[in-house]
């Protein structure tokens, strides 16, 4: 039982309404009749029942969604991540009202538009079920009926003054199915969100010039370290470091050497090796290897210079000032001296 679509074009509303009455008399159900026009006519003009549209409930759902989103942002997030500002309470009253209002309105608008799209967008219609003259002020009455009725319907339409008739097989071309529509709309919504989240979680990253990561200021233990001029570091006498009492070297007694040895094994051996040759367990992990303390280069340094390296660090070596008090550092210096080959 094939279906036929019969489309008649009319000049104005009265003959259109008459046509609808005639079609009703012929037994065509209301759902099978579609009236198309270039301007919105009310159902009363055409003698039709009003269309029930679900937009108001959809809009309300959108409003509730927006309301809840706003409450989440203004009430839940400050409680999750508490950051106090300016003597104002964590959830301030008036700003919360503003945000709730805006999100509720946004939700309403988006839901209304989405509802409209979902209901009317991308219908699967054939070319015969529309005529371009509808946007020229003509009114179209489309009846999709069983082929047995088609001839009667055609006659009825001609009688009521249709000035143009199209009869054709009503096989709507395979248009986008619901899931295809959803995929398209979802794609528009989801894809940008996903890309945004990828950026947000630094999965994707644009190498923007983030100047403050690279600081021009240099700490003691960051390179490049300017070597002190020849006479700058005291080779003899106390070591003067800002905000600390002057530090005199400790004589290299057996006690000092013993203490120095223990401290060396605890603090220094992992990088410089237990024998100070620079082959400690961690030495392979560094870009520039720990110094060989037995070498001529290191042993040629004065005691005070070695003390300065311990206090301030050198290159990749951190400052040992937190680990060793000045006395302990002198003990280690004495021990390093004893490592001379």
């Amino acid at each position: 039982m094939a279906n036929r679509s019969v489309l008649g074009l009319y000049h104005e509303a009265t003959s259109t309404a008459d046509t609808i009455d005639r079609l009703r008399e012929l037994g065509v159900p209301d759902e099978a009749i579609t009236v198309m026009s270039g301007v919105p006519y009310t159902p009363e003009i055409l003698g039709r029942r009003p269309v029930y549209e679900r937009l108001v409930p959809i809009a309300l759902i959108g409003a509730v969604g927006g309301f809840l989103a706003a409450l989440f942002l203004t009430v839940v997030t400050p409680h999750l991540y508490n950051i106090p500002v300016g003597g104002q309470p964590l959830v301030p009253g008036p700003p919360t009202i503003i945000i709730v209002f805006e999100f509720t309105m946004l939700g309403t608008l988006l839901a209304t538009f989405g509802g409209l799209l979902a209901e009317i967008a991308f219908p699967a219609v054939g070319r015969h079920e529309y005529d371009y003259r509808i946007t020229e002020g003509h009114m179209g009455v489309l009846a999709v009926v069983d082929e047995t009725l088609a001839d009667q319907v055609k006659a009825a339409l001609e009688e009521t003054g249709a000035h143009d008739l199209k009869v054709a097989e009503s096989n709507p071309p395979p248009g986008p199915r619901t899931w295809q529509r959803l995929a398209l709309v979802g794609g528009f919504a989801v894809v940008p969100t996903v890309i945004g989240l990828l950026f947000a979680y630094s999965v994707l990253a644009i190498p923007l010039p983030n100047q403050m990561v690279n600081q021009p200021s240099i700490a003691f233990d960051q390179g490049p370290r300017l070597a002190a001029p020849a006479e700058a570091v005291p080779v003899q006498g106390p070591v003067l470091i800002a905000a600390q009492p002057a530090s005199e070297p400790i004589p290299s007694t057996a006690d000092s050497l013993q203490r120095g040895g223990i401290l060396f094994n605890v603090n220094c051996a992992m990088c410089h090796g237990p024998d100070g040759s620079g082959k400690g367990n961690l030495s392979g992990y560094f870009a520039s290897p720990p110094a060989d303390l037995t070498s001529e280069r290191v042993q040629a340094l004065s005691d005070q210079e070695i003390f300065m390296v311990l206090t301030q660090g050198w290159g990749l070596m951190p400052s040992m000032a937190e680990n060793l008090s000045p006395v302990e550092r002198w003990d280690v210096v004495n021990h390093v001296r004893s490592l001379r080959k």
Partner: protein
Amino acid sequence: MSTHETEYPVWRRPVLEDEDLAQQAEHLRRRHLLLDPKFPWEMNDDVLKPMYQTSRTFWVLFVALFGLVMMGVIAWGAQIYWGLGITGLNRPVNWGLFLVNTVYFIGIGHAGTFISAALRVMKVEWRRPISRAAEALTLFALAAAGLSIFMHLGRLWKAYWMLPYPNQRQLWPNFHSPLMWDLMAILTYVTGSVLFVFLGLLPDIAMARDHTRGWRHRLYTILSLGWRGTEKEWAYHTTSLDIFCYVIIPVMICVTTIVSWDFAMALQPGWTSTIFGPYFVTGALYAGVAAVIIVMAIIRNGMRLKYFLREEHFNGMGIFLLLLTFAWAYFYFSDYIAPWYHGEPVMKVIFDLFRRGWAAPLWFLMIFSNVLLPAATLWSRRVRRSIPTMLVIAIFVQIGMYLERYLIIPVSLGYNELPFSWGIYIPRTGVILTIAAFAFVVLGYLVFSRFFPLIPAWEILEGQILQGLRRIGRALMPTRTELH
């Protein structure tokens, strides 16, 4: 077509035997668009043809505007590269022309929404040919406002931190801040406006789809979403427009209120006025209506839309403008008199500046443009129906409103309770970017007018169905019905 003419009672011109009545009918027909029906296929032509007309003037304008926009792009790039130091901003004037532009352009956007939404709800019929032209202005004005606010950021590339999204820093935006309320309000307003324009455009895109060929036909086929004009589509469409109207009117009022609260929430003297909310809304609408008048005047002549945009529309807008003049003057006076009366020292300095200082020419020009000129002229119907005069008055209102924003933002910021820290703002790069922003709005509008019909044909057809002539005694009166 001639046989059809006799069969279209709605759009047929009435033929009256009585000469007097016929004369009255002719007079009414000339004055009122909605009593001057045209056959729909002719109207479609009139609406679609201007889209194709790209005369030499058009191309000259296009190239010039594009050049100005490019100049703005380069200036903005320089600003991002060198830092905001190339503007004239300083301490204490941290906000200058960019904020003025933002507030100004958001303000202009209001008229579009008001005409499309509020006038529709109030069933004011003369809004019909203007609504889309005004809404298009809203779209590009809001875009320019958005660009201006991005221009003023110190680290623009981090601006996305102001969006609420889950992240690994355990940080959400600070909703105590008026700038966040601003962001949410503007987002809502922009979304609403774009969707609103699209909704209104839908039947006209369908019409364009039916009457164009080639790439235009393909474009409109996609955009029209398969619109056929069925009852279901119209019912949903009308209800959507209703919901949008009722929602977008409070959103519109709130947007400028919230933008004004950027200033009202600050501890800056001159900004802490509680009247800023309604004051800015009125000012925004005022500037917007004047901007729409300018746009109407230009497209009427430039795109040969004399059939659609008639003196009656300028008259209606003129009355609206006059009412807004009084409203604006009322709010400005209210904002002025209280601090003047209190005699706060800083406000005394600022007011002195306005009356006698270096800002005096700006201030007097503002008062003239916003109050004196419109109030003196717009009460006259002859003035309101004269399009060149309306254009001049509207341009003055634009100048006045821009000056008002300028006097509030950079000028007031320069003065505070620590005289050692006063400063004066001399705009530098901001000027180039302001010109570029204006050029962007005009350019966008120009391009929009080539792609989409600026006159909502379906609304005019609907209006022409609604309006008719009725004889009461010896006179022929226009009548109007309601379809909904």
